[in-house]
């Protein structure tokens, strides 16, 4: 009885294997580039629509591209837009090998990466799309300190501050770094994003890295603080102590202004103190901010019919709405015009290139 039952099943299995290998071979042969114009089954015939756009790169920019792709699809475009976020560096590696159409980046492309792209004959259009700003925050009633320099922040939250549970503990390091900020005699309770967060990375890169390097320390925060990936829990922690310290993405602070206070920030000790507002962040006066980019493969913008319409949509009013929705700051109108012009002219090359 068992044998009878087994036979047809076995035959089915063999057929199945043969079938799957066959379909795989056929599909693979049609489109070896991987970014061609295959349409998904059941998505209509449309020769002008369809196609695939592959986006990879920064996990910080990922939500923006994700949201743009979602509203692009909601607007009735049936292109397959795939968005991945392994990180800016990994993204450029793929991009410079011609594997992706668009690379998300939370920093300008590096010269070494430009060189790799050149070696592989990849030209790109660099599009500045958003600003990521950080707010350094405390309890709304905390008024002992109004303005912090990077040196103060390093003293309070850098790798050398482990174990400091009073603001005064940080005084010595701050003074060593040339700061004359008077820290109050009050408990120091830190609530901030954990290492998994892009906000953590931004804080370390912009605020701590240079000073840590100078002092021969690892570029990281102190490990002993209340870390959370959830902004609401950070906010609770900040409100729970009258002399707390922490940092969040600007967009989140903006939504909760009044419930917490944001410090003014000076890059150098004694430098100009700037409060975070959309204007100061957009103008670059507020020091803890960084530009966000997308890089478009110039050759693919021609050869992949799905790509150019998607980038057009990305830079439109509708696409740019994703910036605020994802929690970032819109770039000033004239910068957006410049970005659109760059795209229009397909101007290639890096204008923001850093070392």
């Amino acid at each position, binding site marked *: 009885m068992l044998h009878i039952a087994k036979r047809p099943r076995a035959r089915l299995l063999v057929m*199945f294997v043969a079938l*799957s290998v066959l379909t795989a071979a056929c599909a693979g042969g049609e*489109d070896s580039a*991987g970014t061609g114009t295959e349409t998904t089954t059941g998505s209509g015939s449309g020769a002008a629509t369809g196609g695939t756009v592959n*986006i990879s790169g920064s996990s910080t920019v990922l939500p923006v591209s994700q949201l743009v792709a979602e509203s692009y699809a909601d607007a009735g475009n049936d292109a397959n837009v795939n968005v991945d976020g392994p990180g800016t560096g990994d993204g450029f590696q793929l991009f410079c090998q011609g594997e992706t159409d668009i690379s998300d980046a939370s920093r300008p492309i590096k010269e070494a990466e430009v060189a790799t792209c050149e070696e592989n004959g990849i030209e790109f259009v660099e599009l500045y799309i958003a600003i990521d700003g950080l707010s350094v925050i405390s309890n709304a009633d905390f008024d002992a300190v109004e303005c912090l320099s990077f040196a103060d922040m390093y003293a309070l939250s850098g790798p050398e501050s482990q174990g400091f549970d009073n603001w005064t503990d940080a005084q010595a390091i701050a003074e060593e770094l040339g700061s004359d900020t008077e820290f109050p005699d009050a408990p120091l309770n830190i609530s901030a*994003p954990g290492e998994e967060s892009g906000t953590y990375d931004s804080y370390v890169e912009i605020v701590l890295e240079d000073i840590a390097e100078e002092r021969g320390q690892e570029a990281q925060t102190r490990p002993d603080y209340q870390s959370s990936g959830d902004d609401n829990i950070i906010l609770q922690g900040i409100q729970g102590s009258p002399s707390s310290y922490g940092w969040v993405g600007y967009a989140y602070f903006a939504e909760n202004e009044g419930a917490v206070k944001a410090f003014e920030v000076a890059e150098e000790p004694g430098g100009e103190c700037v409060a975070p507002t959309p204007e100061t962040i957009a103008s670059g006066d507020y020091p803890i901010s960084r530009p966000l980019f997308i890089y478009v493969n110039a050759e693919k913008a021609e050869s992949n019919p799905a790509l150019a319409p998607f980038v057009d949509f990305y830079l439109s009013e509708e696409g740019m709405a994703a910036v605020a929705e994802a929690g970032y700051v819109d770039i000033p109108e004239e910068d957006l015009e410049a970005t659109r012009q760059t795209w229009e002219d397909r101007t290639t090359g890096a204008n923001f290139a850093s070392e």
Partner: protein
Amino acid sequence: MIGGDAPVAITTPLSAGTSPEAVRRRLRGRRVDLAGVVLRVALLFSLAFSLLVLAVLLYDVVTGGWEVFASRFQSFMSGTLRFSAGESGIAQALRGTLWIGVFVVLLAFPLGIAAALYLEEYAADNRLTRFIDVNIRNLAGVPSIVYGILGFTIFVKSLSGLTGGRSVIAGGLTLAILVLPLVIITSAEAIRAVPDELRLAGFGLGATRWEVSRTQVLPYAAPGILTGTVLSLARALGEAAPLILVGAVVGRLGSNPGLLDLGSLDQRFTALPIVITYWAGLPQADFRALTAAAIVVILAIVLLANAAAIILRNRFESKRG
């Protein structure tokens, strides 16, 4: 082929130089076996500890994911990767994981069991065989990320014409290769445990090696082989690291084909472990519940596979008896 004297070599004598008086005392005495009690408690504790950890894990993910199942089971199972937690779902991940399972079952299982059968029943016990045996054992211990690099080089790059590059085919093949050594080792162990008398009786009746393997060895070893293969399947379904290299997508996947749509096997894909890893790292609290719910789903899939294996094993065992 059959290492009959191996177990003796590693056991120590029960009690060396025991005198008849000592034995008599042990058998007749009423001394409490303190060491025995301690060992028993320790063993019980180990068991209870493992079960407790499992129970806590299950409780944690089920309570964490419950509200997702209760409020939007349908849309969670059929939804795609999205920005907002309220709209995200695991249909695409489920599809990727399912197909990875299919590739493992179709490729790793037959290849692995055949290789084990060859090593145990056909290959001569010489230096080369032992060398291969040791190597397979070492391969089973190679970190999964290394298989990811292998899969990337071979299936994504070299064979992109066949796999379509960063596709679920490449992912499935990579994970099939990853578990192949495990399948071989566990199957070989099961085949080795088949009593030699069965084979000898078969040969004595004039059966060929293949007939003996097919009618005696494999059915007898089937329960053991099944246990090994299911463990391998569970391992393959839970692997995230190699898939990152092969190119599983986390942010958004444009297409959402049906579960059985063979035509889109060569396109970009995602899988449950990757999605779980990604969601778990997202700052939005709502994704915590989704993460837990996705973990419940992958646990359910693995448990289903286990249950299938147990049912099959029982059938084989009752047949054997």
